[in-house]
């Protein structure tokens, strides 16, 4: 629990413990971000960085709709990913917080392991599973069904599947935490007031775990706009998303200023969307209250 008495930064107990984090995150997180921003004012000629200090890169970005189409596609995929994750995660998180007590630990271990395992491996596993000659088609075939999944790999749907797969655990855990923090007596009170279980659920549980839903959504959204492996391996790189575009800009075109600008553009737009949504939700809440 937090102390009552405030400490001063001079206090060695505080300084020694806080300083490593402050140094680490300023030199290896904030400073690189600032430098990325500064790089966008330079130019790249013949694969060489030139310190020109102009707005060339930004004018280039704002004049080509290509970048914005990809960004829009990325945001669209991210929003879809958030929505699907929430819908799938809710019953699991709810069960975990209320009904699965006996198996809670085992279930958590299973989910945690799947979550913590490296993304490359899992995406690779999906690629093998969904492959033309892979597991899915083999299983479908042996069930006597036509191999429809062939068409599934290397589409946006496969990308989306991969993204949901990679980020679902975040939704489960944030929702689980907020549902287990709900005072059970409130739900019992709703039953008591004559509400059926589904109704109690809808009118009590759901509104009360809004913070969890919101936290999970923001996290998943921010992480999914950066998805790279999924569109590349499962989507087959056919309809690239921003991360892939940025990667190419750096790797193939060796254009650092443009890559930096695209990175910032992606970050700024996603943070803007998050803020916009939180403002909308805030307004709605204020509207309800008045």
């Amino acid at each position: 629990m937090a102390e009552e008495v405030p400490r001063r930064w001079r206090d060695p107990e505080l300084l020694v413990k806080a300083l490593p984090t402050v140094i680490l995150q300023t030199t290896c997180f904030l400073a690189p971000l600032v430098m990325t921003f500064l790089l966008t004012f330079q130019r790249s000629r013949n694969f060489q960085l030139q310190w020109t200090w102009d707005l060339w890169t930004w004018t280039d970005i704002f004049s080509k709709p290509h970048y914005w189409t990809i960004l829009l596609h990325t945001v669209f995929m991210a929003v879809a990913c958030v929505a699907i994750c929430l819908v799938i995660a809710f019953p699991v998180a709810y069960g975990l917080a209320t009904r699965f007590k006996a198996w809670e630990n085992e279930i958590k271990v299973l989910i945690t392991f799947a979550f913590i395992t490296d993304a490359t491996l899992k995406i690779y596993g999906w690629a093998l599973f969904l492959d033309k000659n892979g597991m899915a088609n083999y299983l479908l075939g042996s069930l006597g069904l036509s191999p429809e999944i062939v068409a599934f790999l290397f589409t946006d749907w496969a990308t989306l599947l991969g993204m949901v797969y990679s980020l679902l655990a975040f939704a489960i855990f944030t929702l689980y935490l907020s549902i287990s923090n709900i005072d059970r007596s409130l739900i019992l009170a709703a039953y008591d007031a004559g509400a059926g279980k589904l109704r109690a659920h809808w009118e009590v549980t759901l509104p009360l775990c809004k913070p969890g839903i919101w936290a999970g959504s923001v996290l998943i959204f921010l992480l999914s706009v950066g998805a790279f492996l999924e569109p590349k391996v499962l989507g087959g790189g056919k309809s690239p998303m921003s991360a892939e575009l940025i990667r190419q800009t750096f790797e193939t075109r060796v254009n650092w200023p443009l890559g930096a600008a695209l990175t910032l553009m992606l970050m700024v737009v996603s943070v803007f969307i998050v803020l916009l949504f939180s403002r909308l939700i805030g307004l709605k809440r204020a509207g309800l209250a008045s």
Partner: protein
Amino acid sequence: MTAKLEGRVIDFILWGSLAAVLIFFYVPIFTLIAFSFQEGRFLTLPFEGISLRWYGELFRNSNALTALWNSTVIAVVTTLIATAIGTMAAIVAVRYRFKGREAFQLLAGVPLAFPQLLLGIVLLLWFSVLGRIFDFSTGITTAIIGHIVYITPFAMVIVAVQVFNFDATVEDAARDCGASTYEVYRYVTIPLLWPGIFSAAIFAFLLSWGNFYLTYSLAGSTRTLPTFIFSGIAIGSSPLYPAIATVVFIPGILLVILANRLRRS
């Protein structure tokens, strides 16, 4: 009667969705494990036979062994540093009250919500520019730094849960018993936070061990298991790669189970 029926329906939905989600989570994992036992050269069904052939190949493949070694080194160093910094940050963020507390919490936690690929790129730019000035190139050290930046916030959050449930009066009690600042940490604070620190270390190890994005951007020509496998996907692969994947799973499942045991005891 209707209430009972409703309860059944809810149970069915809840358990059903749990089962579906678990199957969903384990589809690619079991696919990889299955393919690793494939006798033939190709990653297609039906299997030509079942064997451990590719595990043998794996241990004769010097690139794979180097990748295994690199993964281990990066993960061990990252774990030690990230857990130490994260533990200290957790105590500061949860326990201490000081000017700029919110700013500290934000700074310490924000890399959690930052896409790894972008973090990797931003750091790559940073190291490239610094590398030009100070004459170094990316490699195992820069990869470790990247891992630490990304993993320390995770470690902090995990330890913070433990700090949150920690009653600080036992530290006062220890001091009152005659313990110096160092002795308070040694005999009281660290033993009591140990379950949290240990889980944090396990997670740090696993996040680093399996990390692809940051290693891919920051390790230069150094290969770890995940980047080695990624290159394999691109080449058009053999069951060697599923075999490596299965090897990568082993410490993961063991450590997750261990962490869970410890938290419960």
